[in-house]
């Protein structure tokens, strides 16, 4: 009971404070308008919200498949091999790289050759940051599937690859999805790597080849600015960011819980 309170308390405290500071600035404009020039009142973060969504979509498209494939390889096909150890080691190292370094790396690899900042490069860096979490949780969840289930499938004359995908992965899918959600929630709030890749955009850009706004980035820029108006928007942005993450996570949980058989252990 005590530990539950201790864990939930900071979350509740942050949420309450954000509501206190940012709720007053939430109105329809916030979600539909783009930032107004300095000095003018009003405006919103519509572009940043859409931008974050696009960046996270690209990132997930890159990070989730690669991460899950890696996890499947580590757990089902490469157990004990040197290659698997190398992969696991790489994932752990990648996990520990500071996000700003990630941003700089992708900057050199994509932004510089292309000659411009882009939503694409922002998506790439977020995707790469998702990989280690997705990969390791996938591996762990797969290892938790009891061997008896694998043997049951093999004994029916199901080829190994099919057994892995249709049975083992399916059995572990609730856990794997949780892993993806964790990774998603983590990169949703990343700011530093986006500085050198997505760069931010005051306009309504949705093109992958152009710089794009992102909520955390926008919040950062507004928060360190000297303008009260922008501070107000920053608080609102922070509140919206948290709410969107909670919403996304809840939605995924709901959808997947409908899909899993009732009564399955």
């Amino acid at each position, binding site marked *: 009971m005590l530990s539950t309170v201790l864990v939930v308390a900071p979350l509740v405290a942050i949420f309450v404070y954000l509501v206190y500071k940012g709720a007053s600035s939430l109105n329809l404009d916030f979600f539909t308008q783009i930032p107004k020039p300095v000095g003018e009142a009003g405006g919103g973060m519509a572009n940043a919200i859409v931008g974050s969504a696009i960046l996270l979509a690209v990132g997930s498209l890159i990070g989730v498949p690669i991460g899950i494939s890696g996890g499947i390889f580590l757990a089902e096909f490469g157990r*004990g091999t040197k290659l698997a150890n190398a992969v696991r080691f790489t994932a752990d190292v990648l996990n520990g790289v500071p996000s700003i370094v990630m941003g700089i790396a992708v900057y050199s690899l994509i932004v510089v050759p292309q000659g411009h900042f882009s939503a694409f490069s922002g998506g790439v860096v977020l995707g790469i940051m998702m990989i280690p979490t997705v990969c390791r949780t996938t591996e762990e969840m797969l290892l938790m599937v*009891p061997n*008896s*289930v694998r*043997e*049951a*499938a*093999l*004994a*029916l*004359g*199901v*080829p190994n690859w*099919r*057994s892995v995908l*249709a*049975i083992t992965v*399916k*059995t572990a*899918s609730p856990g794997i999805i949780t892993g993806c959600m964790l990774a998603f929630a983590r990169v949703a709030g990343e700011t530093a790597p986006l500085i050198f890749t997505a760069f931010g955009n005051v306009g309504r850009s949705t093109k992958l080849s152009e710089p794009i706004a992102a909520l955390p980035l926008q919040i950062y820029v507004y928060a360190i600015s000297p303008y009260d108006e922008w501070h107000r928007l920053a608080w609102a942005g922070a509140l919206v960011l948290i709410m969107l993450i909670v919403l996304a996570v809840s939605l995924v949980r709901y959808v997947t819980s409908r899909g*899993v*058989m*009732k*009564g*399955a*252990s």
Partner: protein
Amino acid sequence: MGVGIEVANLNAWYGANHALQEINLNIPANHATALIGPSGCGKSTFVRCLNRMHETDPIAHVTGTVLIGDLDIYKDANPVEIRRRVGMVFQRPNPFPTMSIYDNVAAGLKLNGYGNRHMLDEIVERALKNSALWDEVKDDLKKKSGASLSGGQQQRLCIARALAVDPEVLLMDEPASALDPVSTAKIEDLIFQLKAQYTIVIVTHNMQQAARVAEKTGFFLNGRMVEFDLTHKIFTNPSDKRTEDYITGRFG
């Protein structure tokens, strides 16, 4: 219909451990054959060589011949094909946890690309009837998950799943050891009925069970097959003293 199994000079290793030594054995078709012996004697390893599950362990290897019908299972076919002809039921019931009863039984077919809805319904019904589970689950086939059944029912579900792919041989590795006496009795009655259509090999450490269901019994000890004979002879007047010592409980 079941087929006979001929085993010649079978040796099996786990790495350096010579788990089975020079096994020679003829298992008759459409009969139940029991394999008994103390823990670690190799009977489970032997049975897993019959459906090439032994080699799922990377450090395992096998020499010798196993003929199922006329098919040399190590030379003339790959493991996946063999396992469709030789089904297996395990010691602990292991239904697929994310699947309904229906999907569990149909799994062997669906996962191998067989999708004809109408035929699947028939096959599932027949398999569940053959494993004496149909009456208990026919109203909940798609609503209940395989894992929500009782232990005895789960084991019969696993038997139905194995039967649905229409094997010729059914291997049972201590199928009732995790079950209560009534469930055990039901499984044994089932084996009696299944004998007519399949060749059954049952590993058991329960000698009374071997005596109840099997026409022939083989006694394994330390990786060798010591004696293989009609069940009633093994249990009333075995030829080898080691067999006698084991079945009268005078071992070590």
